[in-house]
C-alpha cells in the first residue's frame, strides 16, 4: 500500500508540473496591450512641438527614438529629465532622438517654462488623448517606449528606472540597424 501511495503521489506531481509548464506565460506583469509589446510597430502619431511645428513619428524613421510620456507635475518624470538630456548629448550623434510627450493639461506656456528651466535639449511635444490611447492609455507617468530606427518597439518601461537601465535601453535601441525600405 505504501508503494502505491508513493507512485500515486509522484503521478500527481509530474502531471501537475507538466500542466503548469504549459500554462506559463512570461508576461512580465505588464498591463500594456499586446499591440505595444516589444517587437511590434510603434503607433504613428501627429503632434505639435513647443515651436508649433507638426511632428510625426514617421518623420523620425532612421533614428532610434526614446518616446517619454511625462508631465510637469510628476516628480519621477522630473528626476528622469536630466538623464534624458545627458543621453541626447551623448548618443545624439549615433542617431538617438529623445522625444518627450507632455501630458500636461495646463497652459502650454508652463511646459515651455519648465523645458527652459530644465534645459531640455530634446524634442518636446504636446500630448493629446489620441496619442495616449494609441499607446495604451498612459494610465501613469512616466511611461517610456524605446523605438528602433525601423519604428519597432524595443522596450517599454513604466515608472522611473535607474539611470543605468535607461542607458542600457538606449544602447540596445541605437544598436538596431536601419532596414532599407523595400
Amino acid at each position, binding site marked *: 500500500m505504501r508503494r502505491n501511495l508513493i507512485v500515486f503521489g509522484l503521478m500527481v506531481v509530474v502531471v501537475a508540473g507538466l500542466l503548469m509548464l504549459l500554462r506559463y506565460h512570461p508576461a512580465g506583469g505588464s498591463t500594456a496591450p499586446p499591440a505595444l509589446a516589444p517587437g511590434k510597430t510603434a503607433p504613428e502619431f501627429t503632434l505639435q512641438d513647443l515651436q508649433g511645428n507638426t511632428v510625426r513619428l514617421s518623420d523620425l524613421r532612421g533614428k532610434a527614438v526614446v518616446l517619454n510620456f511625462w508631465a510637469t*507635475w510628476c516628480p519621477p518624470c522630473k528626476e528622469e529629465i536630466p538623464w534624458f538630456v545627458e543621453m541626447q548629448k551623448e548618443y545624439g550623434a549615433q542617431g538617438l532622438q529623445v522625444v518627450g510627450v507632455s501630458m500636461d493639461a495646463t497652459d502650454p506656456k508652463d511646459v515651455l517654462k519648465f523645458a527652459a528651466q530644465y534645459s531640455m535639449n530634446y524634442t518636446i511635444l504636446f500630448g493629446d488623448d489620441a496619442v495616449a490611447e494609441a499607446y495604451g492609455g498612459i494610465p501613469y507617468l512616466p511611461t517610456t517606449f524605446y523605438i528602433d530606427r525601423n519604428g519597432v518597439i524595443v522596450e517599454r518601461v513604466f515608472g522611473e528606472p535607474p539611470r543605468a537601465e535607461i542607458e542600457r535601453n538606449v544602447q540596445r535601441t541605437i544598436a538596431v540597424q536601419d532596414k532599407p525600405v523595400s
Partner: protein
Amino acid sequence: MRRALPDGRRKWQIGESENRTMKRVILMMAVKMNRSRPIAQALLALGMAIACSLPVPAQILEEKPLLAQKRGPQLTVEPIDTITVARGGKARLTLQLELNRGFHVNSHQPSEDYLLPTTVRLSPQEGIMIVKIAYPQGEVMKFRFAGSDHLSVYSGRFRVTAEVRARRDAALGRQRVHGEVRYQACDDHQCFPPKSTPLHFDVRVVRPQSAHR
C-alpha cells in the same frame, strides 16, 4: 474561508480547518485507489493534477470589490451630515477624506512649485458662504523617485475643515452644496494624472432662534 483585505475587497483563503479536511479526503481516496485498477488510479491522478494546476488565487479566488475600484489611487469622502446654520450665523464643516493604501497625494501646500496641491472646491448657492477652508499639514517624506526633494504629502485618512456661513437674507430651508476634491496621486514608482472626487452635502438654513434646538 473569506477574509477581508485592507482595501475592502474580500478574498478566499484556505484556512487550517479546510486544509485538514482536504488532506483527509486525499488520503481516503488514495487508500481506496489501492484496491482499484491502475487505469482508474491514473485517471484520478490526472484529474487531481489538473485541479492542482488551475489558476492560483489571485486570478480566480479574489473577488471584485462591490464598487468598481480600478487599480490606482482612489480618494473617498465620507458622507457628510446635514449642516444646520442660522441666518447670519456660522457652523463647522468637516470633510473626512481617505486615500487607498500604497498611494500619496500632494498636500495643499506642496514643497515644490511644480507639484499640484490637493484642493477642495465648494460651490454653495447664494446666501451661503464657505470660508476658512483649513487643510492639515502635510507629512514631509522622501521618495526615491524625487531625488533630493522632500515632498509634503497626505496619505491614509486626513481631514479638511471649513466654516459655513449663512447671510442674514439667506433663503430658509435645505440647500445642497456641491464640490470636489482635486488631487494628484503617486505611488512609490510612478504618478497618476490629476483626478477629482465629487462631494455634496446639505445645509439647512434656519431662523436664528431655532439654530440651537
